[in-house]
């Protein structure tokens, strides 16, 4: 992979760099012609979820393939049951497309489209997304050809070799800037019913970096498993954040990182395990690796972030009678940094954000009661963790809404660094009653679904935090006066005046 997008999910980008080899095995270059496009949704080839649609288009220039354009998108609807964490086999999660040619010389494979349309709930939207991906690949291909033509080049091999070499050099320099050694650690997640343990040993040896996750929990019978590629991509994202290569990230950057996890573990799950809730486990990996490498380079890592975000899928009937399948993202708080507070409510590690309340209400019969930062959810520390969010929404639909709840960190709040404290734990309730964070439920008309994400952890001793900053946090309601006394040791005499209006802190469904 020579060049990648600058937005989106770092893990998608990591998986893309590996998936292409499978496409080329299935369809060697000599079997491809201009305007062909290949597709797959096989999670062991792609990104560990049946919803991730991989799209590959060969780029022809002067009758030869000079590169491939590739894109990934997440389709909320791939048939099967609603996306959730409580499937037990991949077959429940929808239909899988092997690597197949969806477009032959620009012509759609109508048989395939008929099968796809028959197997999804909202064929127009699903096919529309495919077409959008085709459009993006086509534009990518056109631009690359224009570039080659403008420079009068038959191919781009020399350029690619140069880019590859420099990216490789940059990553080697980045890794070498971390003191050599083996750094070990582990973390526990909520799991489905039982906690899951993730272990890692990060070995830095000069310009090489290897991450071994042997000893992690075996794969789960529920859909919270990850494929090897997905786990690698999350680990690689973390390693790149710490190494900070001086070049844009591409396949060469990724290739410097070695990863191992025994087959049959939760980070290298085998067929036919269910995978729909992969992020509920894998998104602990970045925080784990930062904590582990923090012993070597404390100034280059951050405390744990309140990830995974809230990722529940939901489906029902929208305004105008149109059926919908969507995801209700809600981000948590970024972990504190050695020199500054964590950002409140930020897409991490997946760079995603929630849909505006006003847009959702225009589409669906829902009324939001709250979407606000959660006071005291940022972990205390010399630098404070970013705050999580609380969300509450009431249905006024005529029929039940199906919700595939996907949330973690109910029992395992974020872990601070260097005596920093944990952030607030996550919670999910219906009408104020806690519900299982990985269940599929029916939200009845009039019921209130409420979620709180996890706050980022703190960094450093909270009692060493600048008193002025503590007082400011209290005045702003990021930290309550009580927590300021308890966690930061702020004496009562210096407490600022009470917040002017109390109403905004009334949360309808906060308690678990």
């Amino acid at each position, binding site marked *: 992979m020579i060049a990648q997008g600058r937005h989106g999910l770092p893990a998608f980008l990591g998986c893309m760099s590996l998936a292409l080899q499978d496409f080329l095995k299935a369809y060697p270059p000599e079997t491809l012609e201009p305007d062909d496009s290949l597709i797959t949704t096989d999670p062991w080839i792609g990104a560990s979820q049946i919803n991730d649609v991989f799209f590959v288009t060969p780029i022809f220039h002067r009758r030869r393939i000079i590169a491939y354009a590739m894109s990934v998108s997440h389709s909320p609807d791939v048939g099967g049951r609603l996306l959730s964490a409580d499937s037990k086999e991949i077959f429940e999660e929808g239909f899988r497309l092997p690597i197949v040619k969806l477009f032959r010389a620009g012509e759609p494979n109508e048989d395939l489209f008929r099968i796809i349309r028959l197997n999804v709930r909202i064929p*127009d939207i699903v096919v529309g997304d495919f077409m959008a991906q085709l459009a993006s690949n086509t534009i990518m291909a056109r631009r690359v050809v*224009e570039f080659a033509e403008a420079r009068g080049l038959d191919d781009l091999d020399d350029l690619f070799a140069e880019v590859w070499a420099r990216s490789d050099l*940059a990553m080697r320099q980045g890794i070498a800037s971390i003191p050599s050694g083996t750094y070990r650690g582990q973390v526990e997640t909520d799991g489905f019913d039982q906690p899951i343990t993730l272990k890692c040993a990060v070995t830095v040896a000069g310009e090489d970096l290897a991450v071994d996750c042997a000893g992690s929990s075996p794969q789960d019978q529920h859909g919270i498993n990850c494929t090897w590629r997905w786990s690698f991509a999350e680990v690689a994202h973390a390693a790149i954040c710490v190494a900070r290569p001086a*070049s844009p990230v591409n396949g060469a950057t990724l290739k410097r990182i070695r990863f191992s996890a025994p087959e049959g573990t939760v980070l290298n799950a085998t067929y036919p395990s269910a995978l729909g809730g992969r992020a509920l486990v894998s998104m602990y990996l970045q925080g784990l690796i930062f904590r582990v490498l923090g012993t070597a380079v404390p100034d280059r890592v951050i405390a744990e972030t309140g990830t995974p975000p809230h990722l529940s899928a939901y489906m029902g009937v929208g305004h105008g009678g*149109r059926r919908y399948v969507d995801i209700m993202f809600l981000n948590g708080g970024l972990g504190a940094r050695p020199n500054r507070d964590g950002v409140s409510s930020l897409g991490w590690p997946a760079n995603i*954000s929630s849909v505006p309340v006003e847009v959702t*209400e225009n589409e669906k019969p829902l009324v939001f009661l709250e979407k606000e930062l959660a006071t005291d959810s940022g972990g205390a520390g010399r630098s404070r963790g970013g705050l999580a969010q609380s969300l509450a929404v009431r249905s006024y639909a005529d029929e039940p809404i199906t919700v595939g709840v996907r949330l973690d960190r109910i029992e395992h709040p974020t872990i601070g660094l260097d005596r920093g404290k944990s952030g607030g734990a996550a919670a999910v309730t219906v009408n104020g009653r806690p519900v299982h964070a990985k269940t599929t439920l029916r939200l009845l008309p009039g019921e209130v679904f409420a979620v709180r994400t996890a706050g980022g952890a703190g960094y450093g001793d909270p009692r060493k935090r600048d008193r002025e900053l503590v007082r400011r946090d209290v005045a702003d*309601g990021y930290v309550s006066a009580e927590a300021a006394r308890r966690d930061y040791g702020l004496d009562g005499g210096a407490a600022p005046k009470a917040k*002017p*209006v109390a109403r905004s802190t009334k949360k309808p469904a906060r308690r678990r």
Partner: protein
Amino acid sequence: MPRVAIGVDIGGTFTDVVLIEDGTGRAYSAKVLTTPEHPATAVLEGVNATLAQAGAAHASARTIVHGTTLATNAIIQRRGARTALLTTAGFRDALETARELRYDLYDLFIEFPEPLVPRRHRLGVKERTRYDGEVLVPVDRRDVARAVDALARDGIEAIAVCFLHSYADARNEQAAAEVIRAKRPDASVSLSSDVLPEIGEYGRVSTTVANAYVQPLVASYLSELVDALRAQGSRAAFFVMSSSGGSLSLEVARALPVRLVESGPAAGVSVATYYAERMGRPDVLAFDMGGTTAKISLITAGHPTRATELEVARVKRFQKGSGLLLRAPAVDLIEIGAGGGSIGRVDALGLLAVGPDSAGADPGPACYARGGTAPTVTDADLVLGYLDPGYFLGGAMRLDRERAATAIATTVAAPLGVDVVRAARSVHEVVNDNMANAAAVYAAEQGIDLRGYTLLAFGGAAPAHAADVAQRLGISDVRVPFAAGVLSAVGCLASPVSFDFSFGYMRELKQVDWKAVAGRLDTLEAEGRQLLAQAGIEDEITVARSADMRYFGQRYEVNVALPAGELGTDLVAGIQEAFYEAYRQHYGREIREVPVETVNWRVTVSGPRPALELAWSSQGGQSGPRAHRPVFFVGRDAAIDCPVFDRYALAPGATLDGPAIVEDRESTTVVPPGARLSVDDLRTLVIRLEGRACSTPRRSRCSGTSSSRSWTRRRRRCSARRSRASSRRRGTSAARSSTRAAR
């Protein structure tokens, strides 16, 4: 006494004033230092200077139009009012959580701008409106009163109100405003339903808060300025440039100052639009390169590209996504960290990088001899012979060539292992490549092919870089207008009075209630006509209506013009086709399976574009070359003994062949070998690069000759060969080979 029009552009450093006589088009200009504490002082000084030049009195000015960076700077420097925000209870943090997206996937130390209102001053009140405008909970007036009382204790001067779905029904916001005004008649109040009644709580609240934040400052500044001019006897009608390239009446500018955020850059785009029409070249790439940044905007078919949102106060320079989002109609432009002061350095990978950091004006480039040691683009231009060390700013400042060469030798040439000239040329080419690449990506994002565009160069550094940038983009027509240093002030006078309105209404196209939509559009149009009438404009009014549309469930919209006349269901098919066309232009294909939906709707009501006539006075001088000096051109190893011309002596109709250097007090125009230069009736330098658009690496195929004529001939052959091989090439990268070699 002839009547005159006065244009004023207040920048961070200089205030430029241009006065144009009605009828004759005679133009006079002045450049004075901006007075940040009391901007009116500098404006008055500049206006008085131009009036004196023209022998006119204040009373002869019929209109004064000005652009200002005041609103932007107030936000960047956090000098606005102490502002509070009232929101729907439970939603006070939309301002802070913002887009929730990282602009860098791998930066753990990423930063975002602080919201303009701290959380302690963001208060929720009990109220609720539904998406369709139904008021579920009327606003609790006691709640509002309590909030206002609490805020008064904190010395709040401005209050923004942004309730959910107020774009669909503004009653709750208006009721809250009544309570606020009754209790705090002194406070400035901004309602989101007035400032930006569009869908999407973050964009609306961010814009409304910014409006409240700058309102007191802008209002008092405008009053001060108008009072000062009136005191001198001015009876001129007063207008302010908006971000969208139209001018606003004083009253609208006072109420909606957030519309002024891109006022200065909009004036630049406005003058480019004027020149596009005046030159008969409807497709123009406006290229404004100064000391720190380059700005690029596009005029297509006579109209500037427009945006519905912009970003200010970025915490990471030039990084989209790192600033405060404002949704307001604006001319679209990109800003690149490339200017005369941009610093060249060799990075950890052994690559030469130029910018975005800049030596600024102090200490400035090494050649300013003010203590700067970093090699800059200006230093490279001096070493290459483009600039005359004795005629910088018309000779007002002497440049030190030795210091420039030393800086480049130490920081660039030595680590790369090349000689000083090669290093200087690499700096020059890399900065040009940066700008050309940014322009190419920007054009590509809009589905625009730049070949066939005219590059219009203004700003101090642009004329020296324009020809090479054009070549990299496959553009063969370059124009350098006269008096480029004060052109933005001319742009103020070239813009029509206009008002932009919008409202949110999200529906599937097939479910739109056309009667309701037409009613709202008509109301806004009538409001616009009334505002124009207040400004004395009754005729030649144009109304443009459009809708932001997308495929159902998407999150990105394209703007689609609506047909004139009565809107109804019979037009749905046509509007849908127009959407497909717009989508196809952006994304290459349409998708007919998916339904189409509308999001925000827009109306722009404009008066006529002023019939501006310009006549720059000639100052005479020697018409032949006034000197020769050795100059290193891009793609050529040896220096050419190049003739240097005095721009003020080049009369309309004059022509000459490149290579040539043309100097004026504000800038130096580089005419490369093989190019042809002529001077048009507006004294604009017209540079034709035909026969030079060869896109192969010059050094390998086309260089190695010393006579410019044979070089040109070879280039033509080369070009013909390339044309046969590929009919769709764009851009050139002659530089790339040499730059890479240098690396």
